[in-house]
């Protein structure tokens, strides 16, 4: 039976299944929080970076997967958030957490504007327009040497006094968990239905009364704001920002994570980010060849299981349940 109050608050998601899933997620989260105590500082650092990509991949999945707005600016927005926060902290002397908030707000506004400007664009044009925005942002940051120190990189004040990555890991874990939980709630709400309807058929969504203009701007703003805030935290963790980190490779990595993990699932980008980042570290000696390996893996996965690792996991679970 569906508890009525619950159903009313959250919309018509499947509360029975989601309660089980939420319990599983909570257990997983607790385990993840304890994990760094069993690992050395290098693996913890790798996982911290993976958690950063969980946030990027999840927020891009909201935009591109669920809403169908295939933006190629996510990495640039993360970089923009990072530079915004770093420069405000350095030049205006505001506290780091406030800088992170400003990074999120500025990229939220940027995303809103991008959503408004690309409203009528079809997939290919949207991709090109957002890519052009990303490249221009990177070039401007690279050229504004006086402000950003260009390709030399900008030394960024740290968020925490700690030198060990462990506290940063916990910060990123909390941020990633909040992002995924927030998206879960959002997608089960009426807003989630609106976004999915826009993806499937914008014209029909409009014809039944969904204000597609408003929600496309909103989802662009929200996912950009999340990317910007994550980028800001990341900058204050690594301690160095450079336009090199805003190259298209970063965007490709995020796309690979989402597609490999499973688009339009909550767990997909989480899984994809973890697998790709850990594999990327393990294969570091192979340099750029890694991207080729990832790309080929993604092609293979899409050919066999278009729904990604989550699709594989689901199929296996189903087979296992049927056998049991």
């Amino acid at each position: 039976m569906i508890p009525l109050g619950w159903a009313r608050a959250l919309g018509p998601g499947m509360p029975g299944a989601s309660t089980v899933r939420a319990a599983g997620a909570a257990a997983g989260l607790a385990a993840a929080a304890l994990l760094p105590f069993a690992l050395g500082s290098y693996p913890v650092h790798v996982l911290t970076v993976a958690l950063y990509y969980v946030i990027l991949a999840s927020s891009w999945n909201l935009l591109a997967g669920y809403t169908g707005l295939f933006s190629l600016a996510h990495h640039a927005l993360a970089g923009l958030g990072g530079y915004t926060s770093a420069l405000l902290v350095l030049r205006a002397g505001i506290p780091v957490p406030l800088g992170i908030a400003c990074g999120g707000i500025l990229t939220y506004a940027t995303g809103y504007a991008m959503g408004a400007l690309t409203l009528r664009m079809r997939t290919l044009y949207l991709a090109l327009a957002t890519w052009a925005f990303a490249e221009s942002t990177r070039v401007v940051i690279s050229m504004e040497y006086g402000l950003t120190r260009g390709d030399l990189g900008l030394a960024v004040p740290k968020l925490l006094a700690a030198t060990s990555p462990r506290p940063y890991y916990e910060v990123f874990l909390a941020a990633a968990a909040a992002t995924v939980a927030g998206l879960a709630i959002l997608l089960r709400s009426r807003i989630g239905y609106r976004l999915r309807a826009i993806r499937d058929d914008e014209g029909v969504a409009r014809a039944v009364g969904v204000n597609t203009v408003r929600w496309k701007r909103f989802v662009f703003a929200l996912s950009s704001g999340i990317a910007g805030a994550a980028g800001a935290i990341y900058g204050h963790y690594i301690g160095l920002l450079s336009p090199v980190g805003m190259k298209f490779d970063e965007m490709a990595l995020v796309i690979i994570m989402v597609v490999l993990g499973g688009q339009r699932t909550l767990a997909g980008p989480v899984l994809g980010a973890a697998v790709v980042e850990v594999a990327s570290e393990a294969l570091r000696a192979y340099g750029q060849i890694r991207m080729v390996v990832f790309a080929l893996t993604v092609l293979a996965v899409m050919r066999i299981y278009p729904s990604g690792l989550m699709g594989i996991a689901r199929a296996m679970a189903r087979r296992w349940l049927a056998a049991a």
Partner: protein
Amino acid sequence: MDDPLLILDGLHKSFGGVAAVRGVSTTLARGEIRGLIGPNGSGKTTLLNLVGGQTRPDRGWVVLAGRSLEGQPPDAIAARGVARTFQLPRVFRHMTVLENLLVVVCADHRRAGWVEARRDAEALLRLVHLDGLAHAEARTLSGGQAMLLQLARCLAQRPLVLCLLDEPFAGVHPGIKERMVQAIHETNRAHGVTFLVVSHEMPTLRRLAGRVSVMHNGAWIADGPLDAVARDPRVIEAYLGRPGPGHGPEEGRAPGRAADGHSGQPRDPA
């Protein structure tokens, strides 16, 4: 009330050199079921797009319940109570059949609770015989099933004052067609909803619509009870490309096709 629900006043729409709708003026009474017929390419779909807000007129006005729809986007028009189906069925492919109806409750102007919305959606699915497929993804539906889902979605919209149905019976099994006719009648009677139904199926229109309008080359050429319209020489000419007695659209053929030389009573659907 005596004032008409819908007034079309001098509507005109061209695409490049093609005048798809030229100077259409008409009114629909509240609670009326109106049929709209005409050969392929005569501008019927374009007319529905002009009312639904999918297309902007070059000239002319659409007035709904005394207020102009000029410049209003489709979502604002939906909020005023206009719902529609599409000639090629359009559903939310990656949502389940049930979710397709629940989206309607997520429209920006709606405030209804989920629980009642879900109950209404389930009732509508039973009405169009899709309740067994409630949790199937809509992309797995057949063309006819998608057509039914569209109709259910249209009827699920609130407020609902005007339904624009673009060839809702095309490719639908006779038994299901019967249910669609019943659903339209019931919605019309119970809630006073007005329908504008584009169809090539004369026998079905005969049972559904008190009046039928005819379009030809973008123009509104005739209006009235189906039998009277079917005898109108201009209508016969529009359908056959030449005047000829007894070969009007009343035979239940697909219009635009050559006459089969036999005229008589309309064939009734199963």
